[in-house]
């Protein structure tokens, strides 16, 4: 398959998913017995005012119409209101948030760096920790070390992230006064502060996800270590470390990587709880605001954005997957 065709199909996919996601999210608000105009109605709220608000927010139109407007907006941009008092939302317009009185795109662009910082850092951390621990556990299979790592991993999954975050703040933030407890410093402002403020969130998030990676890596490694080619590798007189890393791990990595890209994709869509505990103004927080205020345009915007990230992540999965496993790349040929 040529690169061009590959990309073409991928773009088509992307388009499809975004259409589906955006439509579903719009449709959702037919289901949801809550009225986005409620907030815009003000106090005291009269039925008439509710109507005006609805009309202005375009809620009187049918779902499909609203959805269509949204799609048009993405390319053409949108304007609201009357001639000499207009709210403009330049393309790519992912909708206009009346609650926040700002174009959704603007909001997302403002928030994404925060979430990205949290997500990527944490992801790297847990990948290293998780895979490392998993590999060690597999090699030292059945020993105390193995058990220890497993118990640690499980503590990781079963502890609620909110708790871990809070404890982190109490312990490292106040008691030990080692790291700042809250807030986000843009990388541009000061890389050091940036990292410094992110240490806790990274650790907390990593702690939670590292578990599954540890377990998955461990079991995959055990599978691989039992297979004949590992014997061949040993027969060459390779050091055990090389046998484990280059041969067993290389094969064990395939599912891990698959999972990783997906998780990262999702994480980039926002890390609700972590962002809340550490008061990081990321996409997760934004989504929560949107939910709290039934801010449909914002909700749809963030959702679509997240979905896009996920699709890209999956693309990455497939590429990496092919790179890691030739049998997959060659469409599982006759051998």
């Amino acid at each position, binding site marked *: 398959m040529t690169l061009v065709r590959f990309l073409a199909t991928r773009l088509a996919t992307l388009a499809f998913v975004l259409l589906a996601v955006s439509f579903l999210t719009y449709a959702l608000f037919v289901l949801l017995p809550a009225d986005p105009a409620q907030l815009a109605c003000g106090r005291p709220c009269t039925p008439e005012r509710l109507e005006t608000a609805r009309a202005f927010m375009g809620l009187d139109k049918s779902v499909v119409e609203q959805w269509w407007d949204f799609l048009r907006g993405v390319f053409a941009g949108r304007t609201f209101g009357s001639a000499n008092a207009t709210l403009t939302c330049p393309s790519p317009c992912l909708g206009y948030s009346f609650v926040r009185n700002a174009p959704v795109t603007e909001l997302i662009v403002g928030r994404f760096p925060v979430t990205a910082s949290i997500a990527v850092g944490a992801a790297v951390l847990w990948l290293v920790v998780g895979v490392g621990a998993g590999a060690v556990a597999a090699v030292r299979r059945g020993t105390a070390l193995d058990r220890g790592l497993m118990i640690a991993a499980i503590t990781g999954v079963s502890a609620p992230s909110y708790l871990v975050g809070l404890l982190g703040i109490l312990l490292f933030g106040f008691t030990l006064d080692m790291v700042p407890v809250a807030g986000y410093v843009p990388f541009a402002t000061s890389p050091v502060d940036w990292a410094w403020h992110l240490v806790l969130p990274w650790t907390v998030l990593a702690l939670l996800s590292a578990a599954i990676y540890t377990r998955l890596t461990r079991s995959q490694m055990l599978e691989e270590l039992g*297979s*004949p080619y590992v*014997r061949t*590798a040993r027969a*060459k*007189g390779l050091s055990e470390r090389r046998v484990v890393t280059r041969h067993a791990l290389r094969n064990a990595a395939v599912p891990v990587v698959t999972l990783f890209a997906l998780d990262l994709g999702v994480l980039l869509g926002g890390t609700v709880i972590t962002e809340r505990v550490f008061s990081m103004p990321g996409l997760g927080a934004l989504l929560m605001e949107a939910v709290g205020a039934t801010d449909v345009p914002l909700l749809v915007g963030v959702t679509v954005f997240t979905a896009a990230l996920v699709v890209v992540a999956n693309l990455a999965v497939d590429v990496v997957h092919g790179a890691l496993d*030739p049998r997959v790349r060659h469409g599982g040929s*006759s051998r």
Partner: protein
Amino acid sequence: MTGTTHQGGQPLLEVEGLSVVFDDAATPAVDRVSWTLRPGRVTALVGESGSGKTVSAMAVLGLLPDTARVAGSIRLGAPDGGATELVGASGGTFRDVRGAVLSLVSQEPMSAWNPVLTIGDQVAEAVRAHLTGPSRLSRRAAHARVLELLAEAGVDDPVRIAAAYPHQLSGGQLQRALVAMGLSQDPVAIVADEPTTALDVTVQAGILDLLRRLRDERGTAVLLITHDMGVVADLADDVVVMREGRVVEAASVGELFAAPRDTYTRTLLAAVPRLGETAAGADAAVRPSRPEETAVVLDGVTVTYGGRHPVVAADDVRLEIGRGEVLGLVGESGSGKSTLGQVVAGLLRPGSGRVVVDGVDVARASRRERAALRRSTGVVFQDPASTLNPRWTVAQSVGEPLRLHAALDARAQEARVRELLDLVRLGPGYAGRYPHELSGGQRQRVAIARAVALGPAVLVADEPTSALDVSVQAHVLDLFRDLQAELGFACLFVSHDLAVVERVADRVAVLRSGRVVESGPTARVLREPADPYTRALVAAAPVPDPEAQAARRTARAGAPA
């Protein structure tokens, strides 16, 4: 005779009273075995399939699974006269020994490779394994060396093979690559476990010459595990015969062939098929072969594998197999035999050409027809190890076709499975085992049992006896003929062992780089071959007699094929 100069050189490996027992196994896989390996000499380990050859070799390299318990002593002699005990040695000791001192060419090449790395990388890794500091080669240097080694091991297209992944190569190509890897660190001793099973005789001869040269020029010691008496006669200095885990006889090759003492050794030698010994076609008449009714038609079949280096594995092949007829398919490794096999089995759609099996055009067949076809075609794959589900017991694997197609209740099924296992000389004890608990030959027999379970109308047998010792092989071949007589199935019999082919095949087709260069009645093709390549093949086939074999070798050296 060559190698004698090294006679009496102090032993490199001294195995004494070695025993190996696996968990859950009542009897030891290896039972108080003793033998020695001397520098500059080739010791052949022959014997029944499942007699403990591989296991004892693995014990030497410390590569047995954790379920194995090892007893006895294995002493590795060092040049300075000292000796290291390997039984219960530390991982570190083994690491230093493996590859550099003792290298391994393992059985079943197809599962021995890491599926996600290229052949080149894996060999290069071996090249650099023990080199450290300044002596460590650069990647480029290592790669060059790899190509060299591959060429030495008789690989015709090193660049492509090095760049290929295991699943893209033929059994023989993988095996030769394995040999190359075994030589890569010019070890003091090579443990070669069935190094030529998947190789056609010409290539086999090449490999044997290579080993011989190493022995003579570098004084390398070789532990040669094989079931092919021809190979033994060709290369070995000393022979150790094993059976049921014990050594039944050990002697120099001359004595052994001249005056075998043990009865089993005698049966073994007696069972060796010799080229030209069976009056071919003699019993072909007996067989219910009705060539006028064709069961399989290949018409202008062409198969090309894509990829960076496209390969034409089958090039406008035309073949016919009549009902009850056995077509022997011989030819050099990588010539496309397995590919054709898969085409007939319906596992591979040819790029062009017509395939008719059992009267059905595979390309046009409806789903139902195709299902019916599958039911009526049996396949013995070249590499049994990889075609057995690692999580299934022998009984499950053999029982699968029954579950799929025969309406049998559990008991009847179990009975049938035992029957089938017994046909291939595997006792009921093996029913509950997993593939990794079997020897190469045992796995192969499981595969055969599975293939014939439903009494197929068409059988594709890809090197079905490559890993079987001659006695079992003889048995399986008999079985084969009996079944054939019973069921009268048409058979595509792929093998590189001309003697075997001669024994079972009515007609023979010779394949070279995807083309049929010659085909006709077995007798004709093997007695007075027309095509030069066929002639080379016949000339290269080793005979189980040291003297004769030596003579042939010199003759062949004179007249290049």
